[in-house]
Structure formats: C-alpha cells, structure tokens
C-alpha cells in the first residue's frame, strides 16, 4: 500500500517543486537590476543586535549612489571562511568578505585575497587606521584587506569587592606583584572552596598573552625567527604556575569550563573579582549584571617599566581573488571603513572599530551612556599598548606545536625550561621545513 501512495506523491512533489526558487539554475548575480552592478557581501553578523546595524550601513551605501547595489548575506561564523575558500576555488566568490585580520597576510600569500595596492595607489586610506592593524594586513608591503574592527585585552575589576577587601576601588593593580597582592586580599575561602576568587590569569586569555605582556615580544621576531625560549617567557610561566598552585587544578578547571563555554561567568555575581577580557565584554556586564560596580584598567606590567602590552585582533574587509567587480567592491569597502559607518557601528554595537577617528568620535558620542564611554575610552587608550600576532606565513600552524608544550607545563608534565626548549626546537624545525 505504501508503494501505491509513494509514487503519485513523488510526482506531485516534483511538479510543485519545479516552480520552487531553489530549483532555478543560473548565476544569481546575472540578475542585475537595471544598470546597477550587484556585489555580494558576506558577513557573519546575523544576530538581532548586529544584523540591523550592518544592514543599515549597507542600505546607506546603496542609497548614497546609483551604480552599485550591495547584497548582504549572513553566513554563519567560522564556517563563512570554508565557504569563501570553496567559492574562491570555484572562481565564483563573493565580492567582499569579512575575515580574520591575523591571517590576512597568509591569504595574500596564498592568493586568496586580492592585492589592494592598485586601489590604494589612487585612494590611500591607510592613515584611517591604527598602525598595528594596518601592518597586519600587509604581505610583502602590499595590503590584502582593510581593517574593520578590532579588540584588545583589558582588566575588569569588581569595585565592591575591592572595597570589601579594603582596597582602593580607584586604584587597580599596576604590576604583576600588585595583582597577586590584591588577589590574596580579594580571595574569600570557605573551607576547601572559594566564595570569591581574586584573580586567575588564564581565564579569558591564554598564557601567550601574558608572555606578550611580559616583554612586548611575540613568539617570532621581525625576521620570522622563533624566540619562544626566553628569560621573560620562563618568568611568565613561573608566575602563571604560582597562580595555578595557589588555586589548584580543580577550582581552576571548574571555573574555566564555565567561562569557556560562554555560559555563566563568575565575574558577574562577584565570585571572581578581577578578569581580563575584551572591552566588548562590557556589553555582557551591562546586559546580564547591570548592578555590578566595576572598573577597567590596562593590563598590569610585569615590573615597573616593562610596559602594559596587551593583545588584540580584529577583522578586515577583503576582496576575494576572482571577484567579478573589484572596483565596486572597493567603493563599498571604503564606505564600510569610513568614519560615518564605523562610528555608527561602534556606537550601536559597542565595538572597537579600526578607524581611529571613528573610534574617538564614538567615545564622545552622545548616544553612549557614561559608563559605556569610560570603558570605550579605556579601549581606545589601550590601543597603543596593543599588539597583534599575525599568523606567520611560513608557519601558519605553529600553535599546534606550541600549545601542547604549554599544556604540558601547566599540567606539570614538563618543567618550564624543558617545555620552552622543546617548543623552541620544534618551531625551528617547522620553519626549517617550510623554507
């Protein structure tokens, strides 16, 4: 009986579907409306907060002129780049894609992103952006993506807890030593467990950020030579290990899994007094713990004078290799990274933008509440401390080799000396191999 039912059903379905939109072949882009050139723009901004903002920026651009029509498509976070890569390989890519800033040079080297020099020769817009960001887009002197937004790492601290512990809420810790002292005072122990933890450095960031902070140096020098086995890094890891011993693996892992899973954060209800994260973490405090009295500060220095170096990243707008309308795409990118769009983005999303002027305007924007302004200003101020760690083009997967060594050290399976030495060696081997 089910065979008798199935066949007719099948044909009826086919009939209906032949008229369905999903079964019309042909290049969707060929359906250009009138004289306008339609360009495809892919981003991963689909949430109810971000989507309206980017849509507005796109709409503004579409209205501002009558030659180009931007079609914005949301593609899920993370997977967007797999899709982009496939589309580039098929020579049918979109015209503008938002991508990770740290791998821009790598994509330039691999010929995935278009060399933007020919546009920049006509309109040099490089001075719009923070220098560190702009440099990250360069491969052999040419830019392959235009910075859109960025981030940095700052210290959030609970002022109420500070007061309870007898600390001055307007005087956040300035050095690693102070951080430790403060944490000692902020800790509230209840038997074997903690009611409040003062601070733990590896929640929110990894140990590489602290190694960067310790001496302002990345794992590679300017010439791409690995410099991981250094005195500063050894000291940093010793310091991290001190924290590790202080709280013990059980407590640390339990909190960490909660923080990593992006569900629940002990900082919100005062169970954690100090926490390092991006300035945009503020939006979560604002939304989920509106009563929390907190302050923001730069990352402490390892020792006075060693610098408050922080770590950042961000996203660029790039034109994939093979785009059919690079000129029009460039026009749109210019709009996307110009002051007006950037300021709008910054204010509406409370996000750090790459455009310096837009960022500064945003910090003063009347739409921003005072508390927002304080954090935002801190983010801007921290930009000069902020370093990026672009993916080295000759060893893009070096973290695969470094991470396990760092893990082993933290798990006590290797000594700090041994771990760093091994990391250094395997990086040297990797560089050697790829040359």
């Amino acid at each position: 009986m089910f065979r008798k039912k199935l066949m007719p059903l099948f044909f009826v379905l086919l009939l209906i579907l032949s008229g369905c939109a999903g079964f019309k072949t042909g290049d969707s882009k060929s359906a250009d409306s009138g004289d306008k050139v339609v360009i495809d723009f892919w981003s991963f901004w689909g949430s109810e907060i971000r989507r309206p903002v980017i849509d507005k920026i796109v709409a503004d651009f579409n209205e501002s002129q009558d030659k180009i029509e931007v079609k914005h498509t949301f593609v899920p976070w993370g997977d967007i780049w797999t899709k982009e890569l496939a589309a580039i390989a098929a020579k049918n890519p979109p015209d503008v894609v938002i991508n990770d800033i740290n791998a821009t040079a790598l994509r330039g080297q691999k010929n995935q992103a278009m060399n933007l020099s020919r546009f920049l020769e006509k309109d040099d817009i490089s001075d719009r952006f923070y220098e560190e960001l702009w440099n990250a887009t360069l491969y052999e002197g040419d830019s392959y993506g235009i910075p859109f937004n960025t981030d940095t790492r700052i210290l959030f601290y609970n002022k109420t807890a500070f007061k309870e512990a007898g600390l001055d809420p307007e005087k956040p810790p300035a050095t690693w030593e102070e951080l430790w002292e403060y944490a000692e005072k902020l800790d509230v122990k209840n038997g074997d467990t903690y009611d409040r933890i003062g601070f733990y450095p590896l929640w929110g960031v990894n140990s590489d950020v602290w190694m960067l902070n310790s001496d302002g140096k990345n794992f590679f020098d300017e010439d791409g030579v690995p410099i991981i086995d250094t005195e500063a890094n050894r000291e940093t890891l010793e310091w991290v290990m001190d924290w590790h011993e202080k709280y013990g693996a059980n407590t640390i892992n339990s909190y960490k899994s909660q923080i990593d899973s992006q569900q629940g954060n002990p900082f919100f209800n005062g169970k954690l007094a100090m926490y390092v994260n991006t300035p945009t973490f503020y939006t979560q405090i604002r939304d989920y713990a509106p009563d929390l009295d907190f302050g923001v500060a730069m990352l402490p220095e390892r020792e006075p004078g060693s610098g408050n170096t922080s770590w950042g990243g961000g996203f660029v707008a790039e034109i994939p290799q093979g785009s059919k309308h690079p000129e029009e795409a460039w026009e749109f990118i210019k709009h996307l990274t110009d002051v007006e769009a950037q300021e709008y983005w910054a204010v509406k999303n409370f996000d750090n933008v790459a455009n310096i002027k837009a960022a500064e305007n945003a910090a003063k924007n009347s739409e921003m509440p005072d508390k927002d302004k304080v954090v935002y200003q801190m983010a801007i101020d921290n930009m000069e401390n902020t370093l990026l760690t672009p993916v080295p083009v000759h060893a893009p997967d070096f973290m695969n080799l470094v991470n396990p060594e760092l893990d082993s050290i933290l798990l006590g399976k290797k000594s700090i000396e041994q771990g760093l030495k091994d990391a250094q060696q395997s990086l040297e081997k990797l560089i050697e191999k790829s040359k």
Partner: protein
Amino acid sequence: MEEVEMAAKKRDEERVASAPAYFDNIHTKRKLLSLINFILLAAGSLLILSPIWWMISTSLKSMAEVMTYPPTFYPHEWNWGNYIKTWKAAPFDTYAINTITITMLVVIGSVLVNSFIAYGFAKVPFKGRGILFAIVLSTMMIPGFVTLIPQYVLFSKLQWINTYYPLVVPAFFGSAFFIFLLRQFYMTIPNELIEAAKIEGASHFRIWWTIGLPLTKPALATVAIFSFNGAWNDFLGPLLYLNDENLYTLQLGLQVFKGEMNTQWNYLMAGSLLVLLPVIILFFFFQKYFIQGINLQSGGK
C-alpha cells in the same frame, strides 16, 4: 521476544532458583522480567533526558540567568516568550518550508533509489559485483573534507550553486551507507523467495517492486528516518551551496544566535528544540513500521 539483558536475567534466575515454586509460574516470571525491564528503561531514560532537560531549562531562561554562576538547574523565571522571539529572530517560516522541501525530496530519493541499487548488489548476480561493491564501500572511507573543494567546483561548473540541486540530486544516485544497509537486509531474504518468483515468471524489477520493497519495510523505514535526519540536520551542504538567504535552511538559521564573541544560549536552545520537534514526532509515529516487521522465515520452516 523474550531476550532480556544479562544482569536482570541473572538476578531473575537466582531468584527463581532460590524462590519457592511460586516463581516457576511462567506468568509471574514474565511479569517480573517485564517489570525489571521497565525499571531499567526508565532509569536509562533519566540518563538520556538529563542533558535534554538542560536544553529545555536553558531555553526558558533569560540570558541574565543563563550567565549566572554557578548554573541553575531550572529557570527561576519561565520565559515562554523565548520561543516566539526565537522564531521571529530570523525568517524561520521560510527556512522551515525550505528545509521540508529539501528533506522530502532527499527521503524519497534515498528510499527508492538505494533500495533499487541494493537489490542489485544483493540479489542479482553479475560480473564484477564484488569489486563494485567494494568501491561503494570505499567511497565512505574518504574523508569528506578533501572532496569538499573539488565537489564544490564541480557543482559550480554545473551552475548549481545557490540551488537545491547539490543537496537533493545526489540523493537520487544512492549513498554508500544506505546501499550497504539495505543490502544487508536483502541478504537476509531467502534466495528461494527470489527464485520462486523468477520461476513464476517475474523479472528482477518486478521482484524488487513486489517482493523486495515490502519485505524490507523495516529497513526502508530506517533509511527514511536516517535520511530525514541527515537532510534535516545537514549543515555543511546548505552552508556551502546556498548563497541566497531566502533559500536558507533551519540549521543555517539557528546560527544567527551564535556570534564570534557570545552566544544567545536561550534562543539557540529554544531554536534547536523547535527544529528537533518535527523529527521526534515523525519518529514517534513512524515506529510502527519497525514493530510490524515481517517475518522472513514465516514463509518456510
């Protein structure tokens, strides 16, 4: 059928051995086994359901409560409105229709075509059958990533990007997993049945249609459910091949709740549960096809 898992069985046996003749009574014994079985299943259900309870509970919390540390076991405030908000956060109506369209076609294709192919591999002798079947199996062994790019390029050349063809058409050419599965089921059909039909004058096509299909109904139901599941939950396919948001599917739609920095857990869980619901309902009612299975041996001994 009376087979019961070991532990319960052993316990039962011990009891029977030591107990008075009362337990020798077949009905009592059967009832006892059934009770043990029920208790085991119920206990197991709790294990299975607890993660799902977590989803449900999260889906009803406010984001502020989701972010509370330590996490709460049940919502303090039941935000039923989350479900409506979730559905409205993106054009989920359209996504649902799209997903149903794709899924229906994939299921029909999978059930019909794989059964057809599997019959050939199981019941029609031909030269090179073994080698071809080995090739079928080996296509399962190549990791999908490495063919992802060339396959995309291929579909792009066919002008199939941004259509449902790459998602639907391959289902009409068989999948190794289903071919293998159905072949295993066909192998349990006695050859005598096929031979009898041959002698009665039926062609292989007729035998497949009148004997093969009805006799493998439980397996076809399995294929239907698996392929439904696969198409319904497919993420990578729609992600790669659909460029127009009007063509997006539910799984792609769910991704709007996940951003680069934070995730709207309550909506994501509500959305996941909503997307899950039709599958569960379908399964619940489709089960009868397993239960009314066909006794292949009943024609014989």
